[in-house]
């Protein structure tokens, strides 16, 4: 209960963002005491006391947004009148109310700019467009609202490693609901995404600390999260793999997949369990992705086989260049320009990996020729370095022979001088 006799500071936390004067919503630095918190933190009822305690660690508190920012009420009233319905007090915001309350501030560009210039606005509008938002608006209690992901009274900024929506924690946050079979059963969606992602090329890279590797929001979006469908998945992948997406759209697969309703990139690479792409995916071998659909089609089989042969040649030639440089380096040879030459090889390999998506052997052949040129240039550098070393060694042995000759001459001269001196006497 509220200790009515207790003096409560007359000024306190911020008012809701409804005033025309943005600056007037904030308490001055000398009035930073949160009067709601000062009462609630002394209460014996844990459900009333805990929010006040948690609020001490809130990003909102750091930005001088007090309890009234969300719950309203009148903190200037030292009695229970502070909770009067006439003050607009919202003791327990409902599931559907939360996005509106958060959006009250986070959709107000002028206010947000005053609070923190780095924050973006419009999250509430995006959320309302998302599947999550639509379910929440429809009153689905299992659907998330803002606080489900961001936290409530102890809300951390997303940049904090402690925040559930920090990039490092997002996959775990999403899996909290999406790996819950019981919770997901009514939506008829799978629950193995997190498990698969962890084993995928994306997940492995992310967990190894690659800051560019995607977590859930990388493909699905954050506030406007919407699952990509078969026709749009290439655009989700193409946000990072732009070159591959464009080349894929030039391939015969692009039209064919669209007609058959196949999920573009996912058809060959998978989605949550996307594996590291390998040259073995192309061809007619047991690991070939092509053979999943084309095992009996003569022409596609031939194309797959041709591209596979080209990729094998490219792989072997690139390995030849790397092996030559590694061997030379292990032998203590300094190959000037080797790093740049191998970069050229890697760049050409990268191009080959992209151009494979066109399924055009002639275009693949053209890029494989780039690899050949880069490899030849690398081997020439190694050969030059070996020749330079041989030249140095030959020069060294000649110098050694001359030095030996000089030493023998000087030694003989010394002996001769000693003999002469002895003969000359003391």
């Amino acid at each position: 209960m509220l200790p009515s006799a207790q003096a409560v500071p007359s000024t306190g936390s911020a008012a809701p963002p409804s005033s025309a004067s943005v600056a007037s919503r904030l308490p001055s630095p000398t009035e930073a005491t949160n009067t709601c918190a000062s009462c609630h933190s002394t209460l014996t009822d844990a459900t009333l006391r805990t929010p006040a305690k948690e609020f001490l660690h809130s990003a909102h508190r750091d930005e001088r947004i007090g309890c009234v920012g969300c719950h309203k009420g009148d903190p200037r009233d030292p009695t229970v009148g502070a909770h009067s319905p006439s003050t607009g007090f919202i003791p327990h915001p409902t599931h559907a109310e939360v996005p509106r309350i958060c959006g009250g501030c986070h959709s107000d560009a002028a206010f947000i700019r005053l609070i923190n210039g780095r924050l973006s606005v419009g999250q509430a509008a995006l959320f309302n467009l998302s599947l999550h938002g639509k379910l929440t608006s429809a009153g689905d209690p299992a659907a998330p609202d803002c606080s489900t992901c961001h936290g409530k009274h102890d809300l951390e900024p997303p940049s904090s490693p402690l925040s559930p929506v920090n990039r490092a924690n997002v996959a775990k946050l999403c899996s909290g609901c999406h790996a819950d079979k019981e919770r997901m059963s009514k939506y008829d969606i799978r629950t193995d995404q997190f498990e698969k992602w962890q084993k995928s090329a994306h997940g492995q890279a992310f967990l190894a600390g690659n800051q560019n590797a995607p977590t859930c929001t990388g493909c699905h979006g954050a506030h406007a999260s919407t699952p990509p469908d078969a026709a749009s998945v290439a655009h989700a992948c193409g946000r990072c793999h732009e070159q591959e997406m464009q080349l894929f759209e030039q391939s015969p697969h692009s039209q064919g997949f669209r007609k058959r309703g196949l999920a573009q990139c996912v058809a060959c690479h998978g989605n949550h369990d996307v594996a590291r792409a390998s040259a073995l995916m192309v061809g007619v071998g047991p690991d070939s992705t092509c053979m999943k659909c084309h095992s009996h089609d003569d022409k596609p089989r031939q194309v797959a086989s041709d591209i596979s042969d080209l990729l094998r040649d490219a792989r072997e030639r690139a390995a030849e260049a790397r092996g030559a440089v590694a061997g030379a380096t292990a032998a203590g040879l300094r190959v000037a320009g080797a790093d740049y030459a191998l970069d050229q090889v890697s760049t050409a390999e990268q191009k080959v990996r992209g151009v494979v998506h066109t399924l055009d052997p002639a275009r693949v052949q053209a890029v494989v020729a780039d690899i050949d040129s880069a490899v030849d240039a690398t081997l020439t550098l190694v050969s030059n370095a070996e020749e330079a070393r041989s030249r140095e060694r030959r020069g060294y042995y000649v110098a050694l022979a001359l030095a030996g000759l000089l030493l023998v001459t000087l030694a003989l001269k010394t002996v001769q001088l000693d003999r002469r001196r002895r003969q000359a006497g003391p």
Partner: protein
Amino acid sequence: MSVAGWLADRVGWKGIEASLAAHRASRRGFMFHVGGITLFLLVVQVVSGILLAIYYRPDADHAHASVERIVGEIPYGNLVRGVHVWAADLFVVSLLIHLFTVVVRRSFRAPHELTWVSGIALLLVGLGQAFTGAVLPWSEKAYTDARVGSEFARYVPLVGDWLHRFMRGGEDVDSETLAHAFGFHVAVLPAAMTLLLGTHLFLVSRRPVTPLPQAATAPTIPLYPDFLVRLGVALTGTMVLILSLAIFWERPVGPSADPRTPPSGGLPPWYLLPAHAILRAAPKELLGIDGPTFLFGAACVFGLILLALPFIDRRGSRLTVWLAWIALLALILLSFRALP
């Protein structure tokens, strides 16, 4: 008249020969050749340095790439750089051995005071040459050498801050440091060294080495041709050693320095390791004075005593020899202590 005879006549070789033959030198002992080897190493550095200077570009944007080009693309560039780098290290070693043998043999005594003082000055200039040369490749190691090496200067009493800024060419190690190092390495220090070396050799020729009392009756040989032929053997061996080191023990240039992301930690050049150990082990305060400054001040006093040695120990006492051995041992131990 043969060409050799004509040339000998024109340069007055007979007179030079008679003058050299009039000087006597010890018949035995490798240590008598150390001075000559030091001079030879200097000549090797000058010749190889001139060759390197043809291709080296002394600005922060191109210095590292030009050294990479020298070792990777210029015919025999790797060998010439190897010879230069090894000769520089051996030069410092040779200078220190020469100094040590002079102390142990008490050859600093009168009338060699000026020879000694010019020798100490040559040592300092030689260390300066080695330090500025180490900075020139502008690699990560060169950057560390410049940063850590110049950091010591800060603790030299009275002139520390000035010396620190002077070595860096400013507050930080940057392109100005490289420009400073290059200017000193190829112009200022070589000029100083030429002057000092000329003085040193002139004094040596005017005042031959004073033998130890117990070696006063040791057999001697004429400087020319006997001693110089023996020196020729030592110099040929030295050249073979340098070439072999350059061929079989390469000194990689290493990655390019990037002052925006300077490497942290790291060791200074080997001849500054004792100073590094002192700095690491120094307490925060000693007798009310900043600890490192106190210890570096003590080292400077030791240096001044060394400079004034012929005037302090006029007769060359055995105590000086013992102190020299103790100092050598201390420097070796401190160097090992500085290693990680």
